């Protein structure tokens, strides 16, 4: 057990040091989160901020998985550090957990403003545990979505050129920072195919915010994404013996 903890710690530092060495990433994340909160408050008042608190957990987890962790794993493969770890006592679970832990400071940049806003708005914190669990689910689906694309690339590519647009497409356009009720009822089931839209609907439901569809639809969508991306990644991601 002690060895496993050390392995996780080692991988976390090796894969997360870039955040400490380039603290402007954190600063950028924090400023963006605060700026976005101010913008939404002026246009949508407290209701927009309440949605934003939930959205920051979901998009924070989504960004952690889809963008940061998948990029680190992708780069580790390009730099052949992945092979270095495979031919060592490091295991796939310790590698994953270590990489996620190492990237955590970037997740915190959106969680801190979310918590401050929630305190100011005197929001009920009873929903926090399900939201954190959904943020973790969001991170897993995000990571697997990214990896299922990255691991199938034949040509050497700048990985961030794929994960960054993917992040923008899945968070800015669908109803994440705005409610699903703004979308025509006919289109809502189709919109829920987007994993972030479904995760947000589930989170709103847990937070007691009225939602636009039956909770079963986003639940089915989320579970389907989890299964689909797990299968897609499992087919390509190998920890040795490829």
């Amino acid at each position, binding site marked *: 057990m002690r*060895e*496993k903890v*050390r*392995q996780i*710690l*080692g*991988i976390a*530092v*090796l*894969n997360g*040091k*870039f955040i*400490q*060495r*380039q603290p402007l990433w954190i600063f950028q994340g924090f400023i963006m989160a605060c700026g976005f909160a101010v913008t939404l408050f002026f246009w949508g008042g407290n209701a927009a901020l309440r949605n934003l608190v939930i959205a920051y957990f979901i998009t924070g987890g989504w960004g952690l998985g889809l963008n940061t962790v998948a990029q680190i794993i992708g780069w580790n493969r390009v*730099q*052949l*550090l992945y*092979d*270095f*770890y*495979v*031919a*060592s*006592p*490091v295991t796939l679970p310790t590698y994953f957990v*270590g990489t996620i832990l190492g990237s955590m400071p970037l997740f915190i940049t959106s969680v801190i403003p979310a918590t401050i806003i929630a305190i100011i708005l005197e929001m009920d914190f009873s929903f926090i545990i399900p939201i954190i669990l959904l943020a973790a689910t969001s991170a897993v689906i995000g990571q697997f979505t990214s990896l299922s694309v990255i691991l199938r690339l034949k040509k050497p590519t700048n990985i961030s050129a794929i994960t960054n647009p993917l992040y923008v497409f899945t968070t800015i356009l669908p109803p994440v920072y705005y409610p699903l009720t703004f979308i025509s009822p006919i289109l809502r089931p189709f919109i829920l195919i987007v994993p972030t839209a479904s995760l947000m609907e589930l989170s709103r439901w847990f937070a007691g915010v009225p939602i636009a569809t039956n909770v079963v639809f986003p639940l089915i969508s989320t579970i389907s994404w989890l299964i689909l991306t797990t299968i897609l990644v499992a087919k390509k991601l190998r920890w*040795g*013996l*490829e």
Partner: protein
Amino acid sequence: MRNDAVRAVELGRKYEEIWGLRNCTFTVKSGEMAVLVGPNGAGKTTTVKVLTTILKPSKGKAEVLGMDIVKDFKKIRKRIAYLPQGCRIDLNLTPLETIKWSLVARGLSLAEANLQSKKWIELMGLSNCKDRTGWTLSGGEIRRVCVAMALATEAELIFLDEPTAGLDVETRHKTWKILREAVKEGVTILLTTHDMTEAETIADTAILINEGNTLIQETPQKLVKSLPYQYKIIVRKDEFKALSSSDIIDLGDRLILYAEDSKAVETLLSQFNDLTNVLAINKTGLEDAYLRLIHGIKP
């Protein structure tokens, strides 16, 4: 009698329709430095990747430290270390951090990793840059950090895929010295290179490989001794148009002539009107043995 650290029997690996490795058979004894030599695309990296359990073999069998590479891959990984060819480090870390945290990632305690990393920083001559991030290091320094990452594990068996590629002569010599010292301490090393001089200098046993097949495994000294020539002479072609035999290698405007002994050298030189056309006279080496082998001439 020493145990076999590596035993490969008719090992092969296919990438979709192409065989990256066809038929590789060799053994590496514990505590020796084995060098896998061959040109680019010979199958050296594939061999190492199969032995380090990164790739699954398509045919044949192999044992590493007495364990089957497919069945016992988890146990093997705990006792080996591998430096991939062209492996790059995260430039945000300093050499000391890179080595220390990669040791922690293998399960060493912080105190052990600290001691070990400092020791290898010193040994690899990286003390003057140990606290600088990778962004400010030279290519050679980065490569040395990579080699140190593998050696600092002090694993029983270390696989190094072209560890000295891109290093200057002096650094290469320093690295060879460290590798030989590690072998003296009882570590087994399997190293790949396409540099015959490197193989001849540091190998206890050389495994010559070409087009995915092992050609021969022997000590470099025996391979060189098996050559029917002791010398090779590099000359300008213009002066030596008349001769044509299998003892000559054509290099365009230059030729390599082989001579059995010093007398044969004298005889060859006497045929030159202008000795400035004789560019070099060298002792034959592993490279010459290799060239003969790939042309099908067994020693």
